[in-house]
């Protein structure tokens, strides 16, 4: 692999994967702490009907209306989940299951009916993403990384994810204190006049934004994995929320890079000529990170716990 092919073909994909992982991974910390891990799962599923509707309404595969549609679908589903949970007095998981399966089913039917299936909209695409298709043909050398006019030719999905990531970092930085408070003790937050519902809703809105921005490039399964695995890994490594956020960010980016290389180079190293799904591989690597942490984390790993019990 020479520098130019790396820059032209691998670099944009790595950038996409890592950016998607980073944004979702940061927000995932609060989902995991609030026992809402599966909110990421539910939201990534309801993105499908949203984009199909966005397509049907505007008739274009332009990303903005489709993202708007997805965002609206995500918010509707969150409202519906809350409604079912309260009226049916069922656990949040069951309410989520009802909503996201139904909305996904609606998306599938809409897709079949609308003929949108022909224009690069299909279910498999929504699940698996299309990480490898990102290219940066204008790049001619590493010097281009510093030249704005050539950087501007990076795929639009990269720019979009970069902007969304900035928004996520700003959100977490500005509302760090509030997020921490409502995740730990929502009732107390309410007595302070810091509405736990408002902060919780803002978090879900950001999750929806992250999921919608990332899914087109990396697919919803990677989005789900990134909401959970880096945060869960970090949760096992530390008892400080700040440290946890940094670790999760590191794990997310490392999964993005290592996963991509494992997918691109792994088979060649094994001497077989094939390409495997990069998005899938990134999620698998994130899962491996978490497995290692579950077993070997200094204090909360299974081995450390066993040793403690024996003493």
């Amino acid at each position: 692999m020479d520098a130019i092919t790396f820059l032209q073909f691998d670099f944009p994909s790595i950038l996409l994967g890592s950016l998607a992982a980073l944004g979702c991974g940061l927000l995932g910390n609060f989902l995991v702490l609030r026992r809402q891990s599966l909110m990421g799962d539910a939201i990534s599923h309801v993105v499908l009907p949203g984009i199909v509707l966005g397509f049907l309404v505007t008739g274009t595969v332009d990303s903005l209306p489709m993202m708007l549609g997805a965002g609206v679908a995500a918010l509707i589903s969150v409202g519906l989940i809350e409604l079912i949970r309260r009226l049916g007095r069922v656990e949040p998981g069951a309410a989520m299951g009802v909503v996201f399966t139904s909305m996904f089913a609606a998306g599938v039917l809409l897709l079949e009916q609308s003929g949108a299936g022909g224009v690069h909209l299909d279910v498999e695409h929504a699940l698996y993403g299309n990480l490898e298709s990102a290219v940066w043909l204008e790049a001619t050398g590493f010097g281009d990384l510093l030249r704005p006019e050539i950087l501007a030719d990076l795929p639009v999905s990269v720019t979009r994810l970069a902007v969304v990531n900035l928004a996520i970092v700003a959100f977490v930085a500005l509302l760090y204190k509030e997020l921490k408070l409502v995740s730990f003790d929502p009732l107390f937050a309410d007595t302070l006049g810091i509405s736990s519902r408002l902060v919780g809703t803002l978090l879900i809105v950001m999750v929806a934004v992250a999921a919608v921005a990332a899914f087109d490039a990396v697919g919803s399964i990677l989005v789900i994995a990134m909401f959970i695995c880096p945060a869960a890994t970090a949760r096992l490594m530390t008892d400080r929320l700040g440290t946890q956020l940094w670790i999760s960010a590191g794990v997310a980016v490392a999964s993005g890079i290592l996963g991509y290389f494992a997918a691109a180079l792994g088979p060649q190293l094994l001497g077989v000529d094939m390409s495997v799904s990069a998005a899938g591989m990134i999620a698998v690597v994130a899962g491996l990170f978490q497995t290692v942490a579950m077993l070997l984390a200094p204090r909360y790993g299974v081995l450390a716990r066993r040793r403690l019990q024996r003493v």
Partner: protein
Amino acid sequence: MKIDHVSGGATKIALAEAGRRDVLDPGSPLAVAGLTVAYDRKPVLWNASFSAPEGELTAIVGPNGAGKSTFLKASLSLIPRLSGEISVYGKPMEAARGDVAYVPQRSSVDWDFPATALDVVTMGLYRQIGWFRWPGRKDRERARAMLELVGMEAFSDRQIGQLSGGQQQRVFLARALAQDARVYLMDEPFAGVDAATERAIVDVLRKLLAEGKTVLVVHHDLETVPLYFSHVLFLNAGTVASGPVTETFTAENLQKTYGGRLAATQLAALGEAAKVRG
């Protein structure tokens, strides 16, 4: 004009339900009138009225399921109420958040949360700090001072899950102290704590009292009511009786609230304890 044929034993009941006049009393630290809270169309609290005596320590007692925690939560507008008016020094609760501090039950949060004792106490200052801003050095110093007040300064950097139950309770108390409120509502702060912590909590309560604060505590241990508190509120689905411990903490009121739960001898002993203290 009052309907007078509701006389005899009913007069007392009528009085117990009175206090609704105090609602608009702007001098009352916490006035609750006609509070009804229902879960699933079954009232947990029915027409409860109470006006907290200013600068006093009031124990809220009653059997399990009598609605004591619900009373605190509904007073704080944390859960919806079917009817009832609530005011803090004449202001609605939403406008008086800065005046009221709350100590929830220890079991209401996940202690495995990645936060230190100091982090949790600092949360008591979040309202003063304001949205979007991070706690500064001064805030941390104040939080540390509060930890010192409850004898926990040595544990400020400890993750909260690694503290004992009593220590966790002290952290919650320090968080409420950091709020520097006028009215303190505490939900079972004495539940499951060690003797040393119990003394430390009593010290804090006395200190609050000395500063002229009004404190309401949901309390389980009837024996210590006359020792720790000056006033008592008996709750069972509604307000049964309330007033100074010396007058109200009587065998009769205990019997009315707890019924067959307390043996007669125990009741007599508790009533005696109240009189001795008075």
